[in-house]
């Protein structure tokens, strides 16, 4: 497999993305980008079967509209990695900023550390497309805001209480949010409700838990029980009466 290394030190994102596109078009399957610092839009709209290793801190909207590639970030991310991503995988070995997996429509975003506010805002699903966001650490407020589909899983590794911020699933009308341990009722957003996490749920989700743990090199066994809280929509139209009269 042909590997290509790019030194992105001081490089603007436009030439960087051009190099990535040209490499993928010429059949390169493995790209390593060193000294990344703040370059936005890396791998935007990129299609194909390629693995991109990003050493550093990429700028906002990593992998936006991306369909197929795998991005591995050895560092933190800024806002909205996986924005409207269609397919493929983003693995972040650090933490990430606000609006992670914003409007994501397919593929997987794995974050080893923590994420900021509004993770998974307006994630959606259709037919076979079911996006997944997994967070190893914790999340700030409004996780899964206006969520319309997909799965968000938060493991709370290194945190006594997985989530402590308000507005979880505020306006959720599709999809599910799974949180390790208990979640206080007062933290639920408008339109979100807690249901029991069953053995069936564990069976369904254990491949995902295993895969995430393997990716971030953590033993999956301690997570293979039903000590989770499942948060789902209370209705498909949480704001039906807010702006209109029926």
């Amino acid at each position, binding site marked *: 497999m042909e590997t290509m290394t790019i030194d992105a030190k001081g490089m603007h994102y436009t030439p960087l993305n051009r190099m990535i596109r040209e490499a993928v078009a010429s059949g390169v399957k493995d790209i390593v980008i060193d000294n990344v*610092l*703040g370059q*936005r839009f890396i791998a935007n709209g990129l299609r194909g079967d390629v693995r991109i290793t990003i050493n550093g*801190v990429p*700028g*906002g909207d990593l992998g936006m509209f991306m369909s197929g590639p795998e991005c591995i970030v050895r560092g*933190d991310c*800024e*806002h909205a990695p996986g924005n409207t991503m269609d397919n493929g995988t983003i693995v972040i070995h650090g*933490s990430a*900023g*606000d609006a992670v997996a914003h409007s994501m429509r397919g593929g997987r975003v794995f974050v080893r550390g*923590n994420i*900021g*506010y*509004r993770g998974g805002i307006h994630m959606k699903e259709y037919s076979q497309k079911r996006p997944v966001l997994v967070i190893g650490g914790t999340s*700030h*407020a*409004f996780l899964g805001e206006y969520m319309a589909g997909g799965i968000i899983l938060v493991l709370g590794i290194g945190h006594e209480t997985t989530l402590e*911020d308000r*507005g979880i699933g505020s306006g959720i009308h599709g999809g599910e949010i799974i949180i390790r341990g208990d979640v206080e009722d*007062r933290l639920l957003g408008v339109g979100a409700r807690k249901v029991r996490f069953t053995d069936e749920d564990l069976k369904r989700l254990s491949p995902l838990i295993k895969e995430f743990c393997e990716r971030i090199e953590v033993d999956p066994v301690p997570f293979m029980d039903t000590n989770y809280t499942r948060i789902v929509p209370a209705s498909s139209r949480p704001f039906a009466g807010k702006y209109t009269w029926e």
Partner: protein
Amino acid sequence: MCGIIGVIDRTKARMDGSSIKRALSLMNERGSGEGAGYVAYGIYPDYPDCYAIHVFFDNLIEPKSKVDEVLQKWGRIVHQEEIPTYEQPGLKKEHVPWRYFYKPYTDFIVGSNNPAEDIVKHLVMAVNSTIPGALIFSSGINLGVFKAAGWPEDVADFYRIEDYKGYIWLAHNRYPTNTPGWWGGAHPFNLLDWAVVHNGEITSYGTNKRYVESNGYKCTMSTDTEVVAYLFDLLGRRHGLPSEMVVEALAPHFWDEIDRMPEKEQKLQRTLRLTYGPALMNGPFAIVVATSKGIVGFTDRIKLRPLVVGENGSRLYISSEEAAIRVMDPEVNTIYMPRAGEPVVGRVVQ
């Protein structure tokens, strides 16, 4: 959308402006080339007891003679000069930046706890609202704002900010959305010791403006951030609230959070909310405020704008983006995101 970054060296070790210029330029995407600016504390050690009054003059004839006149009535101009600037191909010089080092006569007014500051504040308001073609945009001791309508690098090179050394720097890259970009509308905004950079919108501007104007301030710069500087001056300097409490008044806790606090704290928070209702700021914002004693950063309560904090020894960084901090300081060892509405404070240690 705008880009902000601030840094303090808590031991007062001074840094030149070259690294914050690089950090701000990294966030070029957050601006539109219509406004950028920098403020630095500790840059005028040769004038340790003078107010450094920075003015934009449209010309050096009528507006300047009027400003000279009113300053000389109220005090002594110790030194004055044009602020050195260097032509940049991407930046049109629309005003002449000028600086006065100034000492007000403090026995001219009565009933003030700090006559010098109240006179300077009066002069800023008077000049900005009555002298056409003159705008005082910086008025503190041993600090200075350098701003213009342009991109971060162009504005920095226009003033050669690497020639200034300060222990606190704030910088701002503007993307004007609600009002036109112009030199006076660029950030930072300053009054006396307070300087403010802001990303977002103060949608409560009307209420806040009426509140500060009923307390003797005049909003003259056609943009919302100006009111934040006056709110900090009113609550922080004139009412004497510590900066954390000013933040609690401007971005207060939600009522349901207050309900869960211990009784004493509840009482304080309720009193703050009721007393300073018209100072409450609504809308999306991330703000960093500086004084000569330190910096404080905070966001709106539901975090509609980004803010990241970095630390390395005596240095504390607050920025819209982590990469900007890492450009300034590749050795930064702690990076975290503060909670919405929670003040992040870096104080000078004496």
